[in-house]
């Protein structure tokens, strides 16, 4: 995988409030081309909100979000469309079009954005579905698929136009260990093949560290450090240390955890 120093996405002091609740309080981040940046943190900290700012779905109250050098808050609709043309997104709840079949879901970006013939589209869709291990599922509807299969269809749809940047919002949430590993394997293989820049929002720590080039922690409205996984785990930042201890330390080490079941039974 080739990486360059080219900054694809740059967030500068981004602030965002919903009502009286300040979710982002000066978030800054740089995502470099060809790298995998992982944003970790507890639930409700605003990780997905950062992702929505990068996608231009939310506008910051203050600060700048630049993608490919364009300020998303200031660019016109056409430029935004052009920028989004290089994106692939795997949403947390996958957001498949539920009244379309698996085939139509994956074919939609090709039909809408390319002038390719239906024969060429069919070939590309079948290739992508085969890559995701979804042969024979073309005519099923999203409601007929399992959670893991939906995620794979979502990934096939996100990658069908060979995007430059792919966003993953909690790609393994709700999946069992083997399905999670399958998703990571697919991510690893497709990134090696397509060489895209990846931004992943996840709380699957420490597994996600193996795939990442940079890890940032979302806490107290800010991104704490954007460090290599090794440096992240050894960081002196008290918030990062607390997060690493909590997610990677011994189970039930904290007094705040519930009492182990066997103790409850014996007492």
């Amino acid at each position, binding site marked *: 995988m080739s990486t360059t120093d080219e900054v694809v996405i740059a967030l500068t002091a981004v602030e965002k409030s919903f009502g009286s609740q300040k979710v982002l309080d000066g978030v800054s981040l740089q995502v470099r081309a060809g790298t995998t940046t992982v944003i970790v943190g507890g639930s409700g900290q605003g990780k997905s909100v950062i992702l929505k700012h990068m996608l231009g*779905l939310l506008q910051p109250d203050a600060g700048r979000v630049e993608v490919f050098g364009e300020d998303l808050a200031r660019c016109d609709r*056409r430029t935004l*469309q052009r920028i*989004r043309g290089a994106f692939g*997104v795997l*949403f947390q709840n996958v957001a498949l*079009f*539920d009244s379309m079949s698996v085939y139509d879901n994956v074919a939609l970006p090709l039909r809408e954005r390319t002038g390719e013939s239906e024969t060429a589209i069919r070939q590309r869709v079948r290739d992508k579905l085969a890559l995701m291990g979804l042969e024979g599922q073309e005519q099923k509807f999203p409601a007929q698929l399992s959670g893991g299969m939906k995620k794979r269809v979502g990934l096939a749809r996100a990658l069908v136009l060979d995007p430059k940047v792919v966003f993953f919002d909690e790609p393994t949430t709700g999946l069992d260990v083997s399905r999670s590993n399958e998703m990571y394997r697919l991510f690893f293989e497709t990134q090696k093949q397509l060489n895209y820049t990846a931004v992943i929002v996840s709380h699957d720590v420490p597994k996600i560290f193996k795939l990442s080039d940079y890890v940032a922690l979302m806490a107290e409205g800010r991104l704490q450090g954007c460090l290599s996984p090794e440096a992240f785990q050894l960081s002196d930042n008290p918030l990062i240390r607390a997060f690493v201890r909590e997610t990677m330390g011994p189970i039930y080490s904290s007094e705040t955890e519930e009492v182990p079941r066997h103790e409850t039974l014996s007492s």
Partner: protein
Amino acid sequence: MRFGGFAEGVAADSARQVLGWILLCKFHFIAGSLGERGCDRSSAGRQPDAKREMPMRWIARLGAETLRLLEVSGRYGLFLLNSLWCVATPPYRVAAAVRQIRFIGAHSLFVILFTGLFTGMVLGLQGYYTLTKFGSIGFLGAAVALSLVRELGPVLTALMVIGRAGSAICAEVGIMRNSEQIDALECMAIDPYRFLIEPKVAAAVLVVPLLTCIFDVVGIFGGYLVGVHLFDVSSGSYFQGMYSAVDWLDVRMGLVKSLLFAVLLVWICSAKGFFLHLERDGGFGAEGVSRATTSAVVLSSVSVLVWDYLVSAVML
């Protein structure tokens, strides 16, 4: 020339800023004068603080409500402009529009035939009993046809389409908004106005006037059935009265109304679903969709009746 996204944001923001500034100036002025008066009184020891703050809170609430109303109006106005722009400019989504024509038009045909027939029959019945009192039974055809072509045809067709297709449009778009499918479209650089809204608007504009014409014809036939076959009105007098009373201007009025109602119903129903996430009382989950659908049906039905009066007043 496009009215979506950035322009929408800039227009809404500028309007909000200017109005906010004006209201703030007014607010400060009123607050200042009230404050001064309050100070005078409190120095005399007559006015407690809580009572002094009451009008301020009321004014602030009024200002916030006005701003919200303007923001909503701007959002819905830009939605309509965007949708009409997409309908008027290529690329045209013919296949999707045909599917919507089938859904809004062909699937509503039975309801329109049924309601049209019975509306005409009841007009024939009521008209017969009323006109016999005045000995003017020869005007039955004219009364039935004029009522249908000018008023009942366009209005009842629009109400039927709202009930059958408008509610479905709102629920469909609302569920797509709730489950992030519209966000997914935007992230795939697919314009949701062009993909989702344009075919519905184009289909409604084509189909509602046609359904109105069918309603009128079936209604006139219903009046004929009751007047001629049930009672003793002659067929010639029924149709002759209609020919002499109804002219092109009446038909034109009915078509203009049906066209306007088509835009109104598809605009309100799809915008209510499209902006579900921005609803004040929370547009989340199944309950949010149901609330939006109910309010879309109520609002578009009331709008149809209000605009019916306005257009009649202008065109008569």
